[in-house]
């Protein structure tokens, strides 16, 4: 393998990891603050992608599409929080799993009803089309680079918001002791709504960005949701820093595994079976990584509670 291909894949892994972080950040915040396990987070991702595709189809502006994805997912998030999930904060995880699973059914079928089953395709905006020349002779698509940049900017903003603002203090206080901060006069139900809307908006934003490189279709959120679970299990539930590190680790492991494992097996066996074994193993790699992390640190890198 050439160095160029290697670094190109490394960047792809980074881009994948940044996307996973946007998904995981909301999931881990919602779990940390509200103690809610939300399977329907993947639906918010899908809603963001569809909102972006619909707005781009009408207006032709990708920027407006991104704004729409942000807003649509946040609104959907606030709606399900206020109508359904609010009643589940005191329930056990089993009820939360079933209700959010049912929400996935509702959102997926609803979207299929509105948009049909055929995938939509989002065009990359002209300004971001094409490739850029990076050092080492790498030609890398500008749009993927923009995704990495956008993801890192959002991550930085999130860290600033959580660590340096009044809202962030409340969020962290909510994670530490819910009863105490409501006793101190913070409107806890509004805080919950803000946290939920923020997490939903990040998921929708990620969905729109990924929708432009892949395709926009019903059910696109679930594989990403499960990867986001792997990320927050590795990073430690409730930890944003852990989510960032774990997301990039998972993104790079998955991408590099898919390239490197078949080549590694090609050294010891013939090409066809090397490809089969390598790609089958590569698809399991991040779960093996998760299992290994759990063997040594049962609550992830930065998790406190079990």
């Amino acid at each position, binding site marked *: 393998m050439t160095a160029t291909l290697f670094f190109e894949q490394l960047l792809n892994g980074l881009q994948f990891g940044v996307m996973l972080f946007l998904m995981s950040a909301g999931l881990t915040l919602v*779990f940390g603050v509200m103690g809610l*396990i939300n399977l329907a987070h993947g639906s918010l991702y899908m809603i963001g992608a569809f909102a972006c595709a619909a707005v781009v189809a009408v207006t032709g502006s990708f920027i407006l599409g991104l704004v729409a994805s942000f807003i649509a997912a946040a609104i959907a998030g606030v709606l399900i929080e206020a109508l*359904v999930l609010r*009643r*589940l904060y005191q329930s056990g*995880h*089993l*009820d939360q*799993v*079933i*209700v959010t*699973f*049912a*929400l*996935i*059914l*509702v959102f*997926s*079928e*609803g979207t*299929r*009803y509105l948009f049909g089953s055929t995938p939509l395709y989002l065009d990359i905006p002209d300004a971001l089309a094409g490739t850029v020349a990076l050092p080492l002779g790498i030609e890398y698509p500008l749009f993927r680079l923009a995704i990495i940049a956008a993801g890192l900017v959002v991550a930085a903003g999130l860290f600033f918001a959580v660590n340096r603002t009044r809202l962030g203090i409340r969020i962290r206080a909510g994670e530490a002791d819910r009863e105490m901060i409501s006793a101190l006069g913070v409107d806890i139900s509004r805080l919950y709504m803000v946290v939920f809307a923020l997490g939903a908006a990040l998921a929708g934003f990620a969905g729109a960005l990924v929708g432009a490189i892949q395709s926009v279709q019903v059910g696109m959120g*679930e*594989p990403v949701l*499960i990867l986001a*679970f*792997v990320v*927050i*299990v590795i990073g430690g*539930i409730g930890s944003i820093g852990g989510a960032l590190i774990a997301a990039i680790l998972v993104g790079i492991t998955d991408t590099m595994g898919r390239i490197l494992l078949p080549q590694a097996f090609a050294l010891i066996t013939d090409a066809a079976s090397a490809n*089969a074994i390598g*790609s*089958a193993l*590569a*698809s*399991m790699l991040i*779960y*093996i990584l*998760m*299992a290994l992390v*759990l*063997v040594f640190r*049962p*609550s992830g890198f930065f998790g406190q509670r*079990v």
Partner: protein
Amino acid sequence: MRFDSVFTLCAMGALLAVGAYGYLFDEPFVLTLAAKASIFALAGSGLHIALGYGGLVSLGHAAFFGIGGYAAGILASHARNYEVMLTWPVEISGTTSLPIIWLISMLAAGLVSIPIGLVSLRTGGAYFIMITLAFAQMFYYFAISWPAYGGEDGLSFYVRNSVGDLQTMNPWIWFLICYGVLVVALIFIGLMRRSRFGLALAMAKENPVRLANIGVSPRKVLLAAFVLSAIVTGLAGALYADLNRFISPAMLSWHMSGEIMVFVILGGVGRLGGAVVGACLYILLEQVLGGITEYWQLPLGVILIVIVLMGSGGVAGLLDRKGKAHV
């Protein structure tokens, strides 16, 4: 009799009545649905050992369902194509004998559940849900990317496996087999609950510290329950493979895990016959709603949300207002 026994007997009686109706009025479709309900009930009852009695919310039981199914499908397809499965270190060929297939499916599901259980029981609560979900997804992706047994397309084996001269392609006989397996499994689970192990399991869920204090390791008890649960669900997977004469990665998908859990919730957690009622109700809803609209999972989702938010404890909870589920 206690409510739980009456509830279970009524549910099983109703299922048998549906099957008998299909037989008497010669409706193979009804018989196939009844067989499917028996199989789903078996899968749900398997999950319920971990979920209801052990309090382990596993969202990864599709892995065991699918592994049981794949074991059955792989054995059958090797036997039909007269291909040896393994030549080294011992020669193993496929088989179409149902008892052997069931045994191997249960063994496969049980063996796989041990490492999954060991890793996921290191944690608890929400971690457990996510980890079991992730491991199931691992097998799903493996089945998709492993081309030997159909990969993404799945694998057909055309004729149901059998034993002796049993005509398993006859829907009535096939229903009776599935129903019989379910009866045996329910008796086994009922006995297990009353056994020393069942009591230890109940305490591992309620008060693990106390259980540890009387000298029983809660983790070992929970692991045993998780493995038993996987074995029963794996057996259901083998039956499901034979029902459709087809296996595909869909059996391993996270959606399947969610459905198996829905069977348990619809019927009522903590009830022996809960999964039976839940599976029957699910198939009934699928038929009724599916007849009204192509998008039947939307109303199904709404119904599920309402049931859980009402906090009724499923059908059993509605019928048994005074009593409390043994959860």
